[in-house]
């Protein structure tokens, strides 16, 4: 391993002085369902991070970005959370190399990265459903987007990263060579191998900030899956919203949107003048006024029907901007408030392609459960990457947003059983409820991850609520301590 000693650290708190305890603040994920109190340390520099690490007690530390993981991954009850969002500098760009690369601090958001690099014709290789995630978080959760079936997840595009480890040293990791085991354990490692401080990412080139999009309404789930299976490879980006409320004959009817990057030649004259313009309208921030049960039978049915019929039955070659195509929800800040104070959870699972029947049964369970989900996404994944804890694998992935209500635990447990039986898994960045034993069954390469963790963090200094829940926190005993 290439050890890079931290250069000339001046800890912000001299060690001999008594440490003023940081106040406890409530941290929760985007689902707002299981908040706990952590000591929040604002990190401005590598030295700050090292000093926070030294000050931590046996509750440990967890890195935190913009808090967009849905569950309890970036909180650490009684311990410390390192807020890395101030580490948001773009350190260097090399647009002439092939591929073009950018080196950023971990707290740079994909939004910032996109705004900064689009003018140079550089495109972020993987965009999840929101741009409001940090590069560090995107790596730690190994996020995916609509192009997974063609271009893989975020980790596939990381050329190197700087990891602050439990011993207080910063190491440079690369996907090949001596450090590859730790590199791939860090991809999708949920911040449990160390704190990612910086990364070099391979960027793509683009002529425009627009997309040529084909939209199709499908009659039911079978129609949808058949079309995706046959035609997805013609598109770089593909995703379907489906109706998870309507039962019976039209179960799983969907709006399928697929597209490719538009070339300048595809643009109308007006847009040709500024093909790389980034259009990111904001409709404002949702106020904290919504009660629980806003999503009820009436609103969910109305929304789902409207969403389905507002889409054209078949339209090709429509020009859409980034926000329209990728991030319609980014137009409304704090949209998670619509679920009320009880919060919600997002259940996302993947099952292999040959388990389409299990997939169907899961969908039926959700539709018939009485739990209502409006934002439902279906996608085909391509090949996974070497990371032991990365979520994507070749297969069907489905995401539903479910408000927290009585009986939701039973539905999720039943879905888990079906998913495990099919050799599938749920996505840790979305998870806030999986049990340790089920998690083990879903991630058969867990022992590989734990072996790396035992080596680099034997006492479990990097720790989180998710780690305790899934019994990852003590790498030596494998226990929840």
């Amino acid at each position, binding site marked *: 391993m290439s050890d890079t000693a931290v250069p000339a650290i001046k800890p912000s708190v001299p060690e001999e002085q008594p440490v003023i305890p940081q106040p*406890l603040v*409530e941290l929760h994920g985007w*689902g707002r*369902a*299981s908040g*706990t*109190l*952590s000591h929040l340390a604002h990190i401005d520099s590598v030295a700050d991070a090292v000093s926070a690490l030294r000050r931590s007690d046996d*509750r440990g530390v967890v890195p935190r970005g913009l808090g967009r993981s849905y*569950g*309890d991954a970036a909180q650490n*009850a*009684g*311990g410390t959370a390192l807020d890395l969002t101030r580490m948001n500098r773009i350190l260097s760009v090399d647009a002439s190399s092939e591929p073009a690369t950018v080196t950023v601090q971990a707290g740079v958001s994909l939004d910032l990265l996109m705004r900064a690099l689009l003018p140079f014709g550089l495109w972020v290789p993987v965009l999840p459903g929101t741009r409001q995630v940090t590069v560090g978080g995107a790596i730690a959760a190994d996020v995916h987007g609509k192009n997974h079936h063609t271009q893989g997840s975020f980790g596939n595009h990381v050329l190197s990263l700087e990891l602050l480890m439990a011993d207080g040293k910063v190491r440079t990791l690369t996907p090949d060579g001596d450090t590859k085991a730790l590199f791939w354990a860090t991809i999708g490692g949920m911040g449990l191998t160390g704190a990612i401080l910086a990364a070099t990412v391979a960027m793509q080139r683009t002529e425009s900030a627009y997309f040529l999009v084909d939209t199709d309404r499908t009659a039911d789930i079978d129609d949808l899956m058949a079309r995706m299976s046959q035609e997805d490879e013609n598109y770089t980006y593909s995703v379907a919203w489906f109706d998870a409320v309507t039962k019976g004959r039209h179960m799983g009817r969907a709006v399928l949107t697929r597209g490719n990057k538009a070339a300048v030649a595809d643009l109308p004259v007006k847009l040709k003048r500024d093909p790389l313009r980034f259009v990111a309208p904001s409709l404002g921030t949702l106020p904290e006024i919504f009660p629980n049960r806003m999503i009820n039978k009436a609103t969910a049915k109305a929304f789902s029907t409207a969403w389905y019929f507002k889409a054209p039955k078949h339209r090709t070659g429509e020009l859409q901007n980034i926000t329209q195509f990728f991030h319609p929800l980014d137009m409304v800040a704090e949209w998670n408030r619509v679920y009320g104070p009880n*919060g919600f*959870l997002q259940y996302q699972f993947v099952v292999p392609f040959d388990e389409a029947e299990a997939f169907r049964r899961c969908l039926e369970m959700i539709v018939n459960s009485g739990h209502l989900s409006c934002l439902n996404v279906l996608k085909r994944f391509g090949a996974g990457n070497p990371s032991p804890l990365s979520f994507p694998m070749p297969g069907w992935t489905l995401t539903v947003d479910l408000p*927290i209500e009585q009986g*939701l*635990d039973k539905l*999720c*447990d039943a879905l888990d059983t079906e998913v495990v039986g099919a050799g599938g898994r749920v996505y840790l960045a979305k998870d*806030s*409820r999986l*049990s*340790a*034993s*089920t998690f083990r069954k879903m991630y058969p390469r867990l022992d590989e991850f734990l072996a790396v963790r035992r080596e680099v963090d034997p006492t479990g200094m990097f720790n989180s*609520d998710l780690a*305790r*829940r899934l*019994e990852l*926190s*003590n790498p030596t005993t494998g*226990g*929840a*301590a």
Partner: protein
Amino acid sequence: MINAVGAPQSLLLLGGTSDIALAIARKYARSGLRVVVAARPSDRRTAAATELKGLDCDVTEVDLDARDHQSHVATIDQAFSGGDIDIAVIAFGLLGDPEQAWHDPDLALELAEVNYTAPVHLGVLLGQRMQAQAHGWIVALSSVAGERVRRSNFVYGSTKAGFDGFFMGLGEALRDYGVHVLVVRPGFVKSKMTSGLDEAPLAVTPDQVAEAVVDGVKSKRELVWVPGPLRVVMSGLRHVPRPLFRRLPL
């Protein structure tokens, strides 16, 4: 940690052989739930552990002797050795014969120790642990007997009055640390503790108490009465003048 859908990952039953503690454990039981059953070593403890293992829980038995205060530290250490505790239930207690209790100093002392001193000592130890982990619930099984102490069982009632006050206060003290205390005030519970006694009005089963505990934790309550209407009854009784109160058949 109690997860997003309200399911705890771990449970500590102090007085793990009590009917109410077991009823609570049955409500939360799911595959992989860690349950620490703390009680005196006995066949009843073994039976309790066996039953919970049968529900696919991951059970550990720990020795707890309420009257041996020295041993409490070890009990709590062992209880937390497997990781954080999400919900700790304080369910042990002693009823005793009410008339014997105020004539027999040894029995009076035993009631005071088991029902008050030991819960306070264990409550402080639990509070320290929970404060450090910055999450968790302490469920303290109090009694309506402590709400207004009556002549008919005043030794027991006085211990529960102290118990109740301590845990209500502990809940206030731990609020800022993300730790919740739920004080449960059941009326007459049809359990082995009360077997042989005449049933009082509004009597409940351990299962109903457990139901109220689960609801109380879910809705983040600080105090629940079981059954609910007891709250109204007791708030009336609280204000009855003593000369009249004395004549009531309570």
